[in-house]
């Protein structure tokens, strides 16, 4: 009945001892990103069988390629829903369910795609041109589809023969192949579409190395190895279990404890701890997307509405916007907020993209010039600016760093935090001065620009509207010569950098934590771990 005083005393001091352990965990000096292997294929040989547990950082939305909009959703699709095209380790487009690259004719308005032969969906239904037409038409025309914009250029899909489809375009659209390498190119089983109708996402069936088995809402998604897959011999694992673990510390802890063998999108402050564990390794991927902030310069009644004059110091005065950017030190931001683990840049297209002209440079921090510009503007300092940010710790830290850096130039930034959803609403409605926002990124530069910087684009929250941006982006989409496209995108990006409706800070890299016992994971720039040839090391 009476506990020994020694035991009680030991128990009483336990939390303090543990707190000391916990503190040591995160205070390690972070390694520079160069010490982390980048997007690669691990070629160690693997044995047959086994269940791989993967931690996802968020709960995917509906597993329906036509309506899905989350990056985590794409991570699951990458292993169960193949597309007409895919990307390889160097971000080149390669055929997946197509038998070759598309044949383009008629001034770019006729695109013929040959399909793989002898492929079946994971319910045994044959994969053919009719199935491709059914899926593409659903993506294009279903009123709820989030893919309609991706395939807006396509006006007709025809079955030429069982292994050939022909797409007729209203105008030439070079990014089409890249669109077909994402969800717009995912082909769903026609049988499952007929029986599931609008609720395909509850039990999705595609062509893929794994097939959907079950989903517990908010908790986990299970995929089983598919017996119908055309390249089934390549697939080693029996089962994939995606566990939704939102908290970054808990995600890292699960990886260390061995409860999961793979953890996606490690938070930058947990990367060093995972790297330090002798049983774990970290690979980096991603870099297609970006993060930064939008400045409201023309969004008066909604991002898709006609832009107007915004009556704020930053909105009215390009000099002040330049001063605001010049006050920022991107490298210092990267170090202070992200342990130096992202790729600093001031343009939306990835640094190594072939569509990016080499002459694009970023302004360095220049406080003297910033102060001079502020003074020349004649606006009385301190200039009040509100900065809207999602209320998570990392975004708040970024906001505070921006706040303190711009203070020296004469800005008085007040940080307004709200939940992510509310911040997006503010952005769309134009109810902000400056707003933190990012984009997960696409292989084709068009996906990082149209809708984001062109007039009345749905994600152009800052309301930029300029023919010098709109026209080259439009022309580049119709142009097939990569060099000419790069030139046009360069012109558009330079103009956007002058207007500063968006100020880009960095390209976000993703860090995938894995157990060293797991081999064969493909992790590319799109940040989607592919487990087709993964398994436990032999």
């Amino acid at each position: 009945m009476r506990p020994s005083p020694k035991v009680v005393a030991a128990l009483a001091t336990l939390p303090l001892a543990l707190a000391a352990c916990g503190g040591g965990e995160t205070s390690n000096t972070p390694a520079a990103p160069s010490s982390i292997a980048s997007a690669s294929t691990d070629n160690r040989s693997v044995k047959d069988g086994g269940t791989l547990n993967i931690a996802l950082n968020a709960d995917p939305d509906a597993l329906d390629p036509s309506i899905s909009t989350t990056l985590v959703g794409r991570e699951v699709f990458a292993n169960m829903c193949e597309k007409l095209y895919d990307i390889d380790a160097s971000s080149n487009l390669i055929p997946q369910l197509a038998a070759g690259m598309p044949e383009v004719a008629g001034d770019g308005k006729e695109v013929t795609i040959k399909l793989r032969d002898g492929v079946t969906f994971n319910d045994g239904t044959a994969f053919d041109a009719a199935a491709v037409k059914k899926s593409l038409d659903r993506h294009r025309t279903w009123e709820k589809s989030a893919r309609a914009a991706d395939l807006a250029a396509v006006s007709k899909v025809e079955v030429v023969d069982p292994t050939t489809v022909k797409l007729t375009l209203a105008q030439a659209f070079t990014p089409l192949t890249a669109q077909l390498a994402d969800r717009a190119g995912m082909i769903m089983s026609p049988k499952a579409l007929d029986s599931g109708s609008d609720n395909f996402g509850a039990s999705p069936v595609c062509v893929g190395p794994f097939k959907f088995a079950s989903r517990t809402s908010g908790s986990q998604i299970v995929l089983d190895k598919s017996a119908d897959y055309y390249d089934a011999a390549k697939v080693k694992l029996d089962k994939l279990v995606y566990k939704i673990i939102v908290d970054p510390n808990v995600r890292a802890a699960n990886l260390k404890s061995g409860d999961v063998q793979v953890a996606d999108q490690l938070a930058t402050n947990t990367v060093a701890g995972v790297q330090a564990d002798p049983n774990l390794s970290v690979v980096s991927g991603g870099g297609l997307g970006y993060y930064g902030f939008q400045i409201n310069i023309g969004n008066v009644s909604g991002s898709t509405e006609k832009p107007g004059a915004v009556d704020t110091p930053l909105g009215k005065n390009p000099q002040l916007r330049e001063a605001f950017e010049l006050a920022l030190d991107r490298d210092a931001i990267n170090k202070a907020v992200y342990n130096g683990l992202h790729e600093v840049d001031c343009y939306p297209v990835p640094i190594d993209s072939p569509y990016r002209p080499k002459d694009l440079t970023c302004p360095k921090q220049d406080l003297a010039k910033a102060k001079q510009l502020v003074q020349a503007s004649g606006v009385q300092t301190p200039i009040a600016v509100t900065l809207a940010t999602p209320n998570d710790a990392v975004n708040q830290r970024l906001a505070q760093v921006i706040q303190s850096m711009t203070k020296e130039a004469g800005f008085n930034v007040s940080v307004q935090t709200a939940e992510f959803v509310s911040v997006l609403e503010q952005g769309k409605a134009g109810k902000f001065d400056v707003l933190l926002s990012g984009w997960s990124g696409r292989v084709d530069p068009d996906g990082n620009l149209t809708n984001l910087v062109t007039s009345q684009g749905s994600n152009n929250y800052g309301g930029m509207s300029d023919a010098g941006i709109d026209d080259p982006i439009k022309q580049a989409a119709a142009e097939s010569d990569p060099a000419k496209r790069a030139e046009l995108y360069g012109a558009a990006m330079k103009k956007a950098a002058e207007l500063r409706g968006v100020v880009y800070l960095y390209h976000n890299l993703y860090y995938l934590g894995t157990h060293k016992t797991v081999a064969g994971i493909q992790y590319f720039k799109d940040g989607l771990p592919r487990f087709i040839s993964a398994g436990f090391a032999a």
Partner: protein
Amino acid sequence: MFWFILRRCGSAVLVLFLSSVLIFLGIRALPGDPASVMAGQEASQAAIEAIRKEFGLDKPLPAQYLDYVGQTLTGNFGRSTQDQLPVADILAERLPVTLELSLLAMVVAIVIGVGAGIVAAVRRGKLADYVATAFGLAGLSVPHFWLGLLGILLFAVTWRVLPASGYVPFTEDPVQNLQRMILPALVLGTGFAAILMRQTRSAMLGALSADYVRTARSKGLSEAKVVGAHALRNSLTTVVTVLGLQLGALISGAVVTEQIFVIPGFGKLTVDAVLTRNYPVIQAVVLVTVIGYVLVNLLVDIAYAFLNPRIRLSGGTRD
């Protein structure tokens, strides 16, 4: 008695109606449009409109309310806007998980809290008392998320004796289920144990100084019998009252614990649904919770009336 029960049922229905209106209006007062959340960043205006239409969000508020009540009365709460799964299925999956967690946490709280309370009272002014009191203070002050992370770090990462997080249904694998529930139950139960400890201690102190305890001692009863059979028994009424009052708090405390331990329970569902403006799920979750509270209160009222006739007569009703 019949009229008393009928009257109570009538007021329960009124409470349910008023809460359904409050829930309905409350979530719509939040900024953020569920259709655009669901459609995502990339969606066109047409897709957002289509979703709004599908979920009836384009209708005027009274019509939306009638849809909601109509659906609820037939036990069909609609489909979740997040993953398109039927809300009724999600609730059926989630509710037992939180109930299990709360129940286990309660067991933890009773064992630790009542035990420590007795020790503290019996050893008043001695080391054990100070340690138990310090534990009580710490238990009340330490936030669940911190304790949870600490538990994971120690038991799962350092010692590797328990899984870090996750949930396995009891029917699937009872051992795994308990292994995964121990840590969350301990974390959730600690704060509650602290409250119980303090209540038990003060009730026991009162009882131990009472005349009947002195009598029991002078009769030559063993100390264990005096404490267990006499003092504790008389202190339990307070403990049981607190236990009942805290049950609700325990379920709401599960919100944080479930987030940390990735347990697919009611609390996690609520937070996720609010963050994604998942109207059908929020409406269903809050309504089911209100129904739970109303039912418990109704049963308590009826039980009181059975036990104490003055209560059923005080309202001027006759049976």
